[in-house]
């Protein structure tokens, strides 16, 4: 059985700058994998590289055994890769409803958008009263809900979540992460970048450490869950 996501020897960056160095990892079906690392060590670039949202990338990225190389971001998205980006990338002038519906833009989910919107509102009831309000007028926490909600509108096969806790009050951050981990994955996978290990501890299947753009064994390598438990491991170049 092929993995939900398989990355082999992926390097990526912007212009002359290389940020991600030769990373290999897998995310199995139904698996939640944490990507730990400090700011500026390439978590965001790695997630963005998977959907080709970087200046350049080389290596191999496969979704359920089919390559994503050579596909533009929108094509990866319509294959079922859902990126919930840092900074949310919402559409501030559009209403919350439109923002959510845009997540179902893929032709598969478009006609079921009403149903899926109801599901998002079940998860974030707070948004129900805001549906006709422009997303630009929301608070930071509500924006994050819209951003995650938009990701859930698609019938995704792989969720790439970039620091969902950033900029939120601690209590909100905890509940946001819990919400994410309580989602049904239906054979898809989730790769969640985070710098705060405490937030994801105990809820995650496996943790990878990213340091200086490379996967490392990480400081907690001894706790029985080495960073490269996915089997392939990072190729650390001399």
């Amino acid at each position, binding site marked *: 059985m092929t993995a939900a996501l398989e990355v082999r020897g992926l390097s990526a960056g912007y212009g002359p700058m290389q940020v991600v160095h030769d990373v290999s990892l897998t995310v199995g079906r139904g698996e939640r994998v944490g990507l730990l690392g400090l700011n500026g060590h390439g978590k965001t670039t790695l997630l963005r590289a998977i959907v080709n*949202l970087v200046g350049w990338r080389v290596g191999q990225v496969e979704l359920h055994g089919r390559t994503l190389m050579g596909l*533009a971001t929108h*094509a990866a998205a319509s294959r079922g890769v859902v990126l919930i980006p840092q900074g949310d990338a919402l*559409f*501030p002038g559009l209403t919350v409803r*439109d923002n959510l519906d845009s997540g179902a*833009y893929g032709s598969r989910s478009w006609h079921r958008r009403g149903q899926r919107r109801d599901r998002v509102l079940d998860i974030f009831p707070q948004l129900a009263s805001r549906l006709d*309000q422009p997303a630009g007028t929301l608070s930071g926490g509500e924006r994050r809900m819209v951003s995650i909600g938009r990701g859930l509108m698609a019938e995704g096969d792989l969720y790439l979540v970039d620091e969902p806790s950033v900029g939120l009050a601690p209590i909100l951050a905890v509940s946001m992460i819990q919400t994410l981990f309580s989602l049904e994955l239906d054979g898809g996978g989730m790769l969640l970048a985070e710098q705060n290990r405490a937030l994801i501890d105990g809820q995650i299947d496996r943790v990878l450490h990213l340091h200086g753009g490379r996967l490392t064994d990480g400081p907690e390598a001894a706790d029985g869950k080495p960073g490269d438990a996915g089997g392939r491991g990072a190729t650390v170049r001399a």
Partner: protein
Amino acid sequence: MSILVSTLNLAAIYSLVAIGISLTWAGLGFLNLAHGVIFTVAGYGAWWTAEHISTSPWIVVLAGIAVGAAAGAAVCLGVYLPLDGRRNWEIRTLTATLAISFLGANVLQEAFGPEPKQLPSLFGSGQFKIGDTVVTADKSGAIVTAVVVLAILVVGLLRSRVGLGIRVLTQNAEGAAIVGINRRRLAFAILAVSGALAGLASVLLAQVFYVSPDSGYVPLVTGLIVALLGGLGSIPGTIAAAVLVAAVEALTATYLGGQYVLMTMFLLIAVVLLIRPRGLGGLLESARA
């Protein structure tokens, strides 16, 4: 009262032209200077149809719209797709569309000669009175047609999937890619719709003026002014700006004389831009962060 009718007539046509420029800029990030030529080509298309196929008003209008849409799609094919994402693409799209607008005007002149062409009358020559003002059928017909088409456009943008895609593109290109929107494919829709609107405007304006190789120049310039004043990407802003510009033009022409129109228009631009450096759009959509 007659000023009001002239204002509405001009505003209707300016909105049709400017919305295309505005959507193209906001959604695709380039200023389409070929918009004037699309306008002209559509006018010629309608004229050719009237000469060779049928003078039925419906067919002539549809021909103008269809040729405009095709010309818009051609700009997508010839300018947007080859340049999208390339180095210095902003200045290159500007130059390429400028070149097309030179090219189009001269090719049309070569093909059809410099003499203006007249379209058949679409709305008949009837007229009616509101109070003691005579309203001609061509003006009222143009106003009604434009309002209907704009209403269809707005509903389409608000309700349909492609409409949502276009609105999303005007907001955030990266977010659009993340949700799976293929910008290049939508570019065809945006430019074809813009072209269709310009084509309709061309046919409507040809009820008053003639179609000639450079008849797209004034609509292009006015359309640019209206689109920028409206705040690029904002449809309510564009319509408001169209009414404002049309009112200034109608008032100036009536009280000062036609040769002063450009001067008052410039003063209007200066005043609006100095008060609202990003156009009127922000006023109407205060929500935009």
